[in-house]
């Protein structure tokens, strides 16, 4: 059991996060300004708009070994570019179906709308993702013991 724990310590999950500049990136900033503590597993890539997120980015990240991918943009209707997040939503819904279809487990990707005032929510999303990843990993490890 201890061995499993230690191993798990070293191979911390890595989450690649695409955050839109105007809402989610600002939300993540707010989580920091509010000194909310959340796991450091995140690697943030700033994009102007969730509409910039090519589904290939998500697939590439997963393929190269990211433990999970987060895409986060403005809430529907709040897009800085009017309709960019609407396209993102359409595109990512299709991607979601594809991922589901190809059997990628659901804890490995998440799409979330986070506004510039939702620092708390942002931190919570990251916590939840890391928890889910750890739980999955632990389960897998136990299966091997």
């Amino acid at each position, binding site marked *: 059991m201890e061995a499993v724990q230690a191993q798990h310590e*070293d191979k*911390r999950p*890595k989450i*690649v996060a695409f955050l839109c500049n105007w809402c989610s*990136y*600002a939300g*993540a*900033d*707010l*989580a*920091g*300004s509010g*000194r*909310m*503590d*959340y*796991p*450091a597993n*995140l*690697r*943030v*890539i*700033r*994009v*102007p*708009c969730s*509409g*910039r*997120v*090519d*589904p290939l*980015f998500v697939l*590439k*990240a997963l393929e*190269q*070994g*990211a433990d999970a991918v987060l895409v986060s943009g403005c809430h529907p209707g709040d897009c*800085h*570019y*009017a*309709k*960019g997040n609407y*396209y*993102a939503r359409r*595109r990512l819904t299709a991607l979601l179906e594809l991922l589901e279809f190809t059997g990628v487990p659901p804890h490995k990707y998440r799409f979330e709308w986070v506004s510039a005032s939702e620092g708390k929510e942002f*931190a919570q999303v990251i916590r939840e993702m890391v928890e889910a990843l750890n739980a999955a990993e632990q389960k897998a490890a136990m299966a091997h013991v």
Partner: protein
Amino acid sequence: MARIGVFVCHCGTNIAKNVDVSRVVAAVGRLPNVVHATEYKYMCSEPGQQMIRQAMEEHKLDRVVVAACSPHLHERTFRACASQAGLNPYLVEMCNIREQCSWCHKDPERATQRAYEQIAMTVAKAYYDQPLTQNRLPVERRALVIGGGIAGIQAALDIADAGHPVVLVERSPSIGGRMAQFDKTFPTLDCSACILTPKMVDVAAHPNITLRTYAEVEELNGFVGNFEAKIRLKARSVRLEECKGCGECWERCPAKRQNIPSEFDAGLSTRAAIYTPFPQAVPNVPVIDREHCLYFQTGKCGVCAKRCPVGCIDFEMQDEILTERFGAVVVATGFDVMDPRVYGEYGGGQYANVITGLEFERLMNASGPTGGHLVRPSDHKEPKTVVFVQCVGSRDQDKGHEYCSRVCCMYTAKHATLLKDKMPDAEAYVFYIDIRATGKNYEEFILRAQRDYGVRYLRGRVSRIYPEGDRLIVRGADSLAGEQIEVAADLVVLAAAAEPRAGAREVAQMLGIGQDKDGFFSEAHPKLRPVENLTAGIFIAGACQFIKDIPDAVASASAAAAKVAGLLAKDHLLSEAQVASVDPVACRGCLQCVRICPFSAIEETTWKDPIERIEKRVAQVNANVCMGCGTCAAACFSGAAQLAGFRDEQVFDEIATAVFVDAAAALAGESE
């Protein structure tokens, strides 16, 4: 090979407390392409910036990465700093290790590792950065205002006063809009004409304003600062400059006998074929309505031409198209009043004595069809009991609009007050759901109607109106009493909903601006940019954005005018630098990007391949219109559409770095 310099900030202890900056700097220094890495206590301070500039020179840096706070705070600072030292500002990248690292991770080791990895990602990204320039766009310092209601009038006057030439285009023969139709205005009850007419005259007299009535904008091309509009001047059949407005012509026009309904009087009176909509019209020059004119229909008449003392009537006049250039456009096309005929339960237009609020305005107006004497349309008798029904077509998702029309609570109170003022013995009942009176002195106005004028308010909707004898039985309810209420009325006034102008859709398409779910023109941001449109350079004023009363319409018009004046005060504009572009070689011409660009910044064009010598269809981004959202780049399957600063290869390398870099090893001194 790039020469990248990395500058890591302590932010006092804000960063340094949780991130071991020295270890990070050491590790970063070993990254490929990094030729210089250093740290400082306050990077944004003057000595900090000085240090960056010096290092740039010393190490011949061609890229700068500052690892500090959020780019939302200091990106501009460091871009300006690099720019002073001669580097293109778009070769500067920031990496956020404060808000998104030291402040949100308690564990120093983990925070240090993350800081290192995020910097490595930023370095990877910076490698591909290219120098970008903002285009300097000339500004055509003239404004176009579409719609000559109170909003358009106000906007035109304000822009003109700021010193810029304005062309005001109005569809009907005179400016004035809805306000010209009113008798008195809430909440002050001052005479509408008394406050509007002087403004109309000012418009006509202003040296900076060119008035184009009986005209419409047919086409708008170009972009902010550089629009080109096609304006159709409809054939007026009267030479504008010569006409004296004497009225000889319309006095004698035999077409009067055809009972042509007057649009201005909401159909309550008739007009001639040659007419001005109302006596105070600006310009006070008639037009010939060719559809009804006997000369145009039968070839025989010409009475007006014979009567006209100056001979300015010209039956041969043709429509004229003007093409003019503008730097900015204000849209102020106003609103319409819903046709309440869909309400079969209120008679569906069958009963002459069920009228709309707009018709009531005309019946009360001193220059209206009855000279301000309120009578029922059916028999011209004075009504003794008048019932007002609010929210007809508003707050009704079944047959009308879901929204509240905003002005009808107030104008109904105005109508009832004016009625009681004119005929103290008349009874006035108002059926309402809620009273929405949120302006300055509005609630007081409602209270006065009830308390001082004896208007009776009944809280409920009306379900049925039907005639009995020569009266109308109005069956409603009072939900406060919990009972049905029946009133025998002589006249019923429906506060019919306000709605988008007929043709708003065509106007929106012609201008390339958005409409909301109800058909009103969309603002750029509901709170922060209420008079702007997402299409830069186009502004919206008055009730075409959403229903407004006069104070709000005027406020929005002045706000739009201020925006326009600000824009036209510049001698050039700077375009967005981080914009999309399409590589014509790679482009397959699928036009997916054209379809989805939220700003219509991409166009289809043909391109001749200089090597293969073939012509093909490709997409082309107008860099002056593109806002840099990157939606096109994500949609393009060929990788032809790319967004500067966020190119595919940049993002892919950031991803790869994020996944493959092992911070623990790097910080321990192992080279990658």
